């Protein structure tokens, strides 16, 4: 680990007296940040920003040798004419400028690249009809899933170049007349964008179709076909239409369904890139119906639930689960690979740029390492950080405060970045984990009498190190989401079941309070929500016995101390569970499912019997009866021969009916899907946890250094391992 950074982190976490320093890594760029710098800046936030910004601007003005400076957008106008006299990178962002042009340069594991490449090749071959004997091509849609900055799009582009494919890309049309997002929402019928998208897909189809069929005789058709595919095309959908909008999402899904219904030889394979990220989504639509009305107005600010977008949200399950659709999951870029990628960029630069960089090599290596650890698998972020810190480094090189400048630069980028991408995945996640850490560890202030828990417990305990109110104020996500995170993780921090029970009780009470239940007027629900969260968080912090004292990580290990230093916060299963439940619930409205059930003599079941009865009684037995071969054939003969039996709806019903491990097949299948999801997150979280100042405090300093290297080793391994294994690994 970079020694500067480490020192800094230790400094931050241990110096409890200096408010100014802590925000270096903990400043929470909440949504309020863009608007209210003045008010927010009262704490270290503003001041620290000044430290990082000032040198840049000053130097940019004074030093004619200034390299490129990445500016916060609001500063762009005033400085644009002053900087960037080094002609070669004027106005360019590095991750665009140094976009890899060959496979070797991709910051990706080679296995992953091979996977994507393999698919593309197959798809092209199939589309070209070279092996038409095998029936229609199943390589229609490739979904690349992964966190932002995992080089998904770049991978496609590079591969397309290598395989000599043309990319037809969908880009969301932007209406320039609408100046703000709100206006866009109001004035434009958002559905129309999707309609354009549909047109786009169909055009792509017609284009090839014309080439194929307009020629009269068969020979010509063959000829034309060869011509048409002499240079193959793929459709790239990187820029998804606004899927947050309900109707848009629906019509987008319809468009995709229509796409796969087009015969393969008439169209091109499509690659859809889906960035998983924390997004505001109306997941709780049915659970919190009252809030929905408001949410429409205040633009999902306060009440929306953050969740993880993933491909299955975007792509209709009919398509997603069909044979035509394949999915490749990208992991966050591992630090080692990121390091390689960054090094390449620096080498490129030094190859053409100033001589100084060679001299700086050692320092750069450290910095690259720090950045690749800090970027949480987002390579784009890493490059941006590199760009800025490089600029700063090259500038400070002239000045004296090199050491300070380096550290400041790295962290400074983090902050600037946080601002530019407020609400963006990584930053809010990072702060999320800090907030979580503060709450979960519930540290008390160091006491004079060192082990100051008195016999009569709570009353005599020291003040909490961090004020719960403040934590809640500075959350990057809304309260109820945060509550879920705390709830998901608290068990690891409880030393005994009594403690856990007391905490659980507070969570329960908090939830009951914050729900806009019958006892509350809807207008009061916002307030109730705050108080509810307050009860949960404070209650938990209070319930935690055996507290940890600030700056004293070693003495008060909780009983489950095994994860103390390596604590990897879990993400609540809640969202996934909710999503899957909604999916199952959707079966009711699935015509195929209705058909299946009515064919097995339950025509009433889906429409009149209570859901509860169906789920609890009918389906479990139905599944047993139908799946049993000798009798099932007799009972539901019509099903046996029918394609229904293989349909997604059928599987859905079966899955709904079977719980637990009695049935290995279906169950494992679903649970591993779940495990896969978490696996990925764990990777991100582990990266965070190792570097969070809190954990750094808790762990011995030597261990931290050891961990850093271990992480690298692990991270590399992880790419080879399947996602499912990662969870085991992190323990």
């Amino acid at each position, binding site marked *: 680990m970079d020694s500067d950074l480490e020192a800094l982190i230790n400094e931050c976490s241990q110096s409890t007296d200096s408010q100014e320093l802590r925000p270096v890594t903990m400043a929470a760029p909440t949504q309020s940040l863009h608007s209210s710098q003045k008010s927010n800046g009262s704490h270290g936030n503003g001041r620290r920003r000044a430290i990082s910004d000032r040198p840049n601007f000053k130097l940019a003005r004074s030093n004619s040798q200034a390299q490129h400076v990445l500016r916060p957008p609001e500063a762009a106008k005033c400085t644009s004419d002053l900087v960037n006299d080094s002609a070669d990178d004027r106005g360019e962002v590095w991750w665009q400028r140094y976009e890899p042009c060959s496979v070797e340069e991709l910051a990706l594991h080679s296995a992953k690249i091979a996977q994507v490449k393999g698919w593309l090749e197959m798809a092209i071959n199939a589309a070209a009809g070279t092996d038409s004997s095998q029936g229609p091509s199943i390589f229609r849609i490739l979904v690349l899933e992964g966190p932002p900055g995992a080089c998904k799009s770049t991978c496609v582009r590079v591969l397309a170049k290598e395989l000599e494919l043309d990319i037809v890309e969908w880009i969301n049309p932007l209406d320039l007349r609408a100046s703000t997002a709100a206006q866009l929402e109001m004035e434009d019928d958002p559905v129309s964008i999707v309609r354009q998208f549909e047109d786009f897909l169909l055009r792509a189809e017609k284009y090839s179709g014309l080439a194929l069929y307009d020629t009269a005789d068969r020979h010509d058709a063959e000829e034309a076909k060869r011509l048409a595919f002499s240079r193959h095309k793929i459709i790239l959908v990187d820029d998804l239409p606004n899927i947050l909008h309900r109707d848009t999402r629906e019509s987008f899904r319809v468009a995709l369904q229509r796409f796969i219904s087009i015969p393969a030889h008439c169209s091109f394979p499509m690659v859809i890139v889906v960035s998983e990220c924390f997004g505001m989504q109306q997941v709780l639509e049915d659970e919190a119906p009252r809030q929905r009305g408001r949410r429409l107005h205040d633009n999902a600010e306060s009440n929306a639930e953050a969740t993880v977008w993933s491909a299955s949200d975007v792509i209709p399950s009919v398509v997603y689960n069909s044979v035509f659709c394949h999915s490749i999951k990208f992991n966050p870029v591992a630090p080692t690979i990121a390091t390689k990628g960054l090094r390449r960029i620096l080498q490129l630069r030094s190859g053409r740029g100033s001589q100084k960089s060679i001299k700086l090599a050692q320092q750069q290596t450290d910095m690259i390492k720090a950045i690749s650890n800090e970027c949480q698998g987002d390579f784009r972020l890493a490059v941006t950080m590199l760009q800025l810190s490089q600029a700063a480094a090259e500038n400070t090189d002239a000045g004296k405060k090199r050491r300070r400048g380096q550290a400041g630069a790295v962290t400074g980028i983090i902050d600037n970045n946080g601002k530019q991408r407020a609400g963006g995945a990584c930053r809010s996640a990072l702060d999320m984990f800090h907030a979580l850490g503060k709450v979960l560890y519930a540290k008390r202030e160091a006491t004079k009498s060192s082990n100051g828990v008195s016999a009569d417990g709570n009353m005599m305990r020291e003040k909490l190190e961090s004020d719960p109110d403040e934590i809640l104020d500075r959350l990057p996500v809304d309260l109820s989401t945060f509550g879920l995170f705390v709830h998901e993780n608290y068990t690891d921090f409880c030393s005994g079941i009594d403690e856990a029970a007391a905490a659980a009780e507070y969570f329960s009470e908090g939830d009951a309070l914050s729900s806009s239940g*019958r006892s509350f*007027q*809807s*207008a009061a629900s916002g307030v109730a929500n705050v108080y509810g969260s307050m009860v949960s968080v404070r209650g938990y912090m209070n319930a935690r016995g055996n507290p940890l004292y600030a700056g004293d990580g070693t003495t008060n290990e909780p009983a489950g101390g095994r994860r103390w230093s390596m604590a990897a916060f879990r993400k609540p299963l809640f969202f996934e569970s909710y999503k899957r439940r909604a999916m199952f619930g959707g079966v009711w409205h699935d015509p195929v499912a209705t058909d299946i059930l009515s064919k097995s003599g339950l025509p009433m079941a889906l429409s009149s019997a209570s859901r509860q009865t169906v789920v609890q009684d009918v389906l479990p037995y139905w599944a047993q009866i139908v799946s049993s071969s000798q009798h099932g054939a007799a009972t539901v003969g019509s099903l046996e021969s029918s394609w229904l039996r293989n349909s997604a709806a059928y599987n859905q019903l079966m899955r709904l009916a079977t719980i637990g491990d009695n049935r290995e097949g279906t169950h494992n299948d679903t649970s591993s899907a779940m495990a896969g999801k978490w696996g990925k997150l764990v990777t991100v979280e582990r990266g965070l946890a190792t570097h969070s100042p809190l954990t750094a405090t808790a762990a011995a300093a030597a261990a931290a250094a050891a961990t850093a290297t271990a992480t690298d080793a692990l991270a590399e391994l992880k790419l080879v391992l399947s996602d499912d294994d990662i969870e085991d690994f992190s323990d």
Partner: protein
Amino acid sequence: MDFFGRPKADVSADSASKTAKHVDPAKDRAIPWVEKYRPKNINEVTAQEEVVQVLRSSLETKNLPHLLFYGPPGTGKTSTILALTRDMYGPDAAKTRVLELNASDERGISVIREKVKNFARAVVSQADPKYPSPPYKIVILDEADSMTGDAQAALRRIMEKYSRITRFCLVCNYVSRIIEPLASRCTKFRFKSLPRDQAIARVKEVAELEYVNCADGAVDALVECAEGDLRRAMMSLQSASRMVQGRALDAEMVAELVGVIPADFVKTLRGAWGVSSAQKIRGLVDDVVYSGYPASRVLSQLHDLVIEDQQLNSLQKAKIAIVMASVDKALSDGADEQLQLFDMMMQASQITAQQTV
């Protein structure tokens, strides 16, 4: 809900039979008796003497304030205001002069505003000279307590705006659900629960008019179960009459119809306290649930038993009452009946056991 005073009974019988003549019998049967025997004028409403008196004087002076009627269901609130309007404008003119809105209509505040506006604007038919016909129209907002606070707040403004040409009458069960500013603009009238004997008399009367053959005690049971809600009693009577088809209606049948739990069964539940094992109590609770008896009903009947129980001392009764209250609260919040009952039974059992120790 609404009933005629005893002295006026003959008149009502007349009018009822008159309407019956020109409506075909099948159609007639379909009319709920509650509607059929609604009072036709203000004097027929008798149980609420104070209210009627005030209204009658306002009828004479043609000076009507905004009104807020509240009280338990089935005490004649809607009937009173309907009767009042009929007295005011006459049966024909009342149609154009009165706007009745209730919870089954769409009641977004914009809808109300629109409707009230159009209504206030509409040309009225010629006033019937036989009636006082004051120059304003009346808007009746039935079931006003199911309106949201926001809608009520907006209503405030509407009331003021149109107060020159309209009078509002809000009808609700719980005055506490009407926001204060709105309530303060209205004259409040509380409708009290019907005295038992009056209710019984009224039900008997209707039973005779409709040729329902009632055994002794059947009417008493009906009124008993209705808990002062005359509409409920009437409804039960009408339903029961369809079921018995000319046979005598007896108390037992009534009990079944209105969902009363057999007394023996409730006694068995009480008997289990203090002596039975958890397993046994669970069996009893299961029985309650499987028989489909509503838990709230079980609770209230058990409560009646406990009050008069000789074997429990006051402290125990008090404790049990507290348990029952909290369980009842949970039930009304929609909690699971089986669990709540089980809980109640176990706690009551423990409390009862304390005595014997």
